[in-house]
């Protein structure tokens, strides 16, 4: 899982997504609490129906615009509490999604289907964010009851109200947040799911505080650009996720296949160079006593991209892990419907039987890292 992309998405989305708008809800809550706590507040105003917000288009007439700056120090506590509540609920949901995803992904086929579905969904959310015709109405609206829970929490008078609102914000995700939730679903573990959501929420925090809370609306001058950048990033993440599914499915449309097709000559040369000539003699193909052993490496950067082998000989594949991490440890051969969890460091042996001429692809559990055995 590429958490940097998630962080970047969060940083941009904090100014334009639901994160920014939730700043408005928090500002409303704090304004109401302060009014209720001021003994000098006009007593004639009916409770819960105070006014300060006279509509005539008077610049800066918004109740939070002026006091926000004067009381920035006081505002840090509720903003921090809101973000803590939000971080808690989103991280917990991320862990849950990671757990559900892991349970669903027990077979390579189910994993592939989930990955493809998540990719398509994320792309659709990204295109909706960009306002692409045909996708503008692609909206997953949370149930009305969820909205009522959130609105009730904006009217609470307790000291915990900002934190509760932060917790409740999980109920009203926008397309960008749903995209990251889909990523968490395909992350491969509860820890990775929790990390995905936590990094996203932390990423949204700076712009949330600046634009969402202080200004109570996404600053219009930046809104268009931020929305555009966020949408582009979401679409890129969607294609990345979709490609992971295509790699797992062994599709000819997968990026590694398309690249291989477009540079056959180069890859052949690279293959010859890589086969047995690396510093640790990985990859390496040896034949002894009528048995072929193919050794490839699994490191923190991925797998040995390509290795050649001979057909018709019983073959053992040895995957030599050297600080392998994350989805790289979920070594998958889609054509064999085989997935093997590798140790971080150490050898894993897989009996492949006699190979037939052609290509056998291997990918990580998320389809991000690939390689193949070319059998002659």
């Amino acid at each position, binding site marked *: 899982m590429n958490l940097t992309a998630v962080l970047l998405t969060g940083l941009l989305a904090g100014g*334009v*997504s*639901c994160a920014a*708008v*939730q700043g*408005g*809800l928090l500002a*409303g809550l704090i304004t*109401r609490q302060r009014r209720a706590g001021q003994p000098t507040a006009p007593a004639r*105003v*009916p409770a819960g*129906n*105070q*006014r*300060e*917000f*006279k*509509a*005539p*288009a008077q610049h800066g*007439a*918004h109740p939070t615009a002026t006091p926000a700056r004067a009381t920035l120090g006081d505002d840090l506590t509720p903003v921090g509490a809101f973000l803590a509540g939000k971080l808690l609920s989103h991280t917990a949901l991320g862990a849950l999604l990671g757990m559900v995803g892991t349970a669903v992904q027990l077979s390579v086929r189910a994993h592939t289907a989930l990955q493809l579905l998540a990719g398509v969904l994320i792309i659709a959310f990204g295109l909706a*964010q960009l306002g692409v015709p045909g996708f503008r*109405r692609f*909206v997953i*609206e*949370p149930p009305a009851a969820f*909205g009522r829970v*959130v*609105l009730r929490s*904006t009217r609470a008078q307790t000291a915990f109200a900002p934190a509760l609102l932060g917790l409740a*914000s999980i109920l*009203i*995700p*926008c*397309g960008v947040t749903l995209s990251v939730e889909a990523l968490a679903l395909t992350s491969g573990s509860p820890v990775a799911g929790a990390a995905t959501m936590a990094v996203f929420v932390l990423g949204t925090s700076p712009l949330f505080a600046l634009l969402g809370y202080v200004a*109570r*609306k*996404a600053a*219009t001058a930046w*809104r268009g650009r931020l*929305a555009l950048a966020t949408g582009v990033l979401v679409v890129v993440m969607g294609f990345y996720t979709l490609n992971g599914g295509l790699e797992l499915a062994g599709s000819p449309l997968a990026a590694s296949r398309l690249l291989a097709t477009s540079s056959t000559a180069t890859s052949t040369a690279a293959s010859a160079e890589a086969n047995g000539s690396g510093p640790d003699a990985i990859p390496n193909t040896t034949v002894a006593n009528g048995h072929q052993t193919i050794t490839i490496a699994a490191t923190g950067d991925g797998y040995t991209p390509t290795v050649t082998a001979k057909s018709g000989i019983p073959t053992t594949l040895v995957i030599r892990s050297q600080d392998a991490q994350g989805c790289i440890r979920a070594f998958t051969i889609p054509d064999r419907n085989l997935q093997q969890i590798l140790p971080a460091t150490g050898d894993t042996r897989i009996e492949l039987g006699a190979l037939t001429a052609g290509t056998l692809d291997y990918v990580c559990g998320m389809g991000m890292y690939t390689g193949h055995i070319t059998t002659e």
Partner: protein
Amino acid sequence: MATTDTLELGIQGMHCGSCALLIDDTLADLPGVITSRTSHKDARANITVDPSQVDHDQIHAAIQELGYRTSQT
């Protein structure tokens, strides 16, 4: 018994359910607004008001000040 008036407004610029909630939350603070139900999906708000306390321009202005565009339907 006070008379009530119902407005149905088109709202442009909402990008998620939180926008709809923010509009409802803001309108609820306006005196004279009795109920407000905004839908992101429909890009629309149904608002019931007491016309003796609030006029339509104030409703439009309150929503526009949040950064959204309004239109009478």
